[in-house]
């Protein structure tokens, strides 16, 4: 397996100012490799979600350096980061967060329509292919709000994949699912990492889920205790 670096975090330090100044992350440095399935674990309040949102470029108030695919991201403007996320990062959240007034197909297409790398027809074809591979082809025309939780989470994964991002990040992607759907979602993510060499970083409470990945990073009180 090639050891190409997908994500590099250097000396990440993060403070919370509310309710009082408090250091959440204490000088974290690590690397994530391409095609790696990485789980961030730790107790509640250990800072693992905070770390994920910093890695995701959405949270910019930190000290230290972050690079994805060799591109330094620290210090860029919000709009530049938004464009970067659009192209290189896919998200799956605990609460699927689809746009309920849009069809399933349209939900999946949105990030690609925003990116405008492909024509609308191509995007639609890609989206349908993704939905087919996730066994959701017959749900494409429905409103997103009409689907079951497991189905919605798979739509969210399809949406995260539409722009073929280098990194897919999940915040408790299975936290809200039963064991059957958890299994399905894990298998999809596992397959993406091994077949497409996409990097997966998830925050999870699920010990079993974490153990089945390639690597576990455990945080405790803002420090890395296992990597």
């Amino acid at each position, binding site marked *: 397996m090639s050891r190409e670096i997908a994500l590099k975090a250097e000396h990440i330090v993060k403070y919370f100012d509310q309710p009082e100044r408090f250091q959440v992350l204490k000088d974290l440095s690590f690397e994530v490799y391409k095609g790696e399935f990485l789980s961030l674990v730790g107790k509640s309040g250990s800072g693992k*979600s905070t770390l994920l*949102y910093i890695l*995701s470029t*959405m*949270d910019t108030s930190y000290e230290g350096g972050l690079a994805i695919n060799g591109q330094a991201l620290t210090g860029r403007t*919000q*709009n530049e980061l*938004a*464009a*970067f*996320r*659009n*192209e290189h*990062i896919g*998200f799956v*959240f605990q609460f699927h*967060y*689809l*746009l*309920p*007034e*849009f069809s399933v197909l*349209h939900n999946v297409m*949105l*990030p690609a*329509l*925003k*990116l*405008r790398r492909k024509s609308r027809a191509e995007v639609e074809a890609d989206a349908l292919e993704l939905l087919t591979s996730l066994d959701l082809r017959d749900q494409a025309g429905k409103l997103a709000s009409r689907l079951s939780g497991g189905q919605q989470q798979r739509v969210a994964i399809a*949406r995260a994949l539409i722009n073929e991002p280098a990194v897919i990040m999940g*915040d408790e992607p299975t936290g809200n699912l039963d064991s059957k759907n958890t299994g399905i979602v894990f298998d999809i993510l596992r397959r993406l990492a091994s077949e497409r060499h996409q990097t997966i970083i998830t925050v999870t409470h699920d010990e079993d889920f974490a153990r089945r990945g390639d690597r576990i990073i455990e945080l405790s009180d803002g420090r890395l205790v296992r990597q």
Partner: protein
Amino acid sequence: MPGSTNQQIAYVYLTSKLKQTLVAVLGVTFGISMYVFMNSFMTGVNDVQTDLAFSSLAHIHVYNDGPADNTDLVSKIWPTGTITHIHSARIIQYTEGIRQSGEILNFLRHQPELTAITPQVNVNVFFRNGANRVNGTLSGVDVGNEDRVFHISRYMKEGNWNELRYRNDGVFLGTTLAKNLSLHTGDNINVLTPDGVSKSFKVIGLFETGVTTTDKTKAYLEIGAARQLLKKNADYVSDIQVNITDFHKADAVAHRIAPVIPYKTESWAEANQQLEAGSRLRDIIAVAVSLTILLVAGFGIYNIMNMTINEKIREIAILKAMGFAGRDITIIFLTLAMVIGLVGGMIGLALGYTVSTIVAHIPFRIASLSHLPMAYYWQDYALAFSFGLATTFVAGYMPARKASKIDPVEIIRG
């Protein structure tokens, strides 16, 4: 669905909660229709007021306003402090009316702004019928030109205005004046001038301008007959009335020509500042009322936009997480507001026109009016529409900007 991705999202948001969208649209519709209606009405009122005023008022008036006060000649020669004893000083030589009226008329006719001009011989007289006597103004007029300046033929109740041209024994009376003197068309009326000349004329018609003082005190006579009555020559004129293309410019024109004319040259606005004040005040009221309505409509939009954004705050966070920039979010919600403004504005213009038309049919029988006055100027409509759009833009921009600044991390992490 055509259009950019942002427009599509705005479209879905607009159509998914149609009821809410409709309420916002109605707010704009109401504001703009009221704006159109109020302004059309006020403009109509102002136009009628102007018409009424100019039925007895020309844009520029040239007349001899009497001799200057030359009774204190001593102090002009002797140093101040000189004690003088002069009693009952009076002017012993003074020309009445306008001399060389032909030259002045000719000069005025060559002004580029001039549209109509008429010379008059006005004299204060007693109108008498038996024991009834009423003080009033007898106006000797150039029949054709008088009508061009004052459109008096429009106000004729009985008789034909042009008949005056051929009847130097005939007069037209204001309706109230005729009533006060118990006179009807065909009756005789006696006129007594300040110089003591008494002459009988025949009443050949009645007019009603709607301006009470005019209808109560005025009578028209052919200008030649008036000169004859006053024993004046054929060049004698007491007043010259001038109309120009734009009555708003009367002041400027009057000031320009005044130095050339050796008599008092006065614009209508100078002589009747209350008219100007009334017209301006009505304009201010109309603008104040309609802007208030638009402001309320604007608050309505602001509220609905704020509500929508609060409802969709998670979706906005997700859009941002997916890579939509703050600018995209602003565009989405601004598009939302502007569509509401455009649709509401267009319906508002139509509704405003409809309301104006209906109100214009309400009977209103005072003065020479039969219905409520209403004006239809495209400028009012254009202004209403652009004000409406500006209001929705501001009302939409503030919440849209707020939405664009939403921090996705805060929302998604809860």
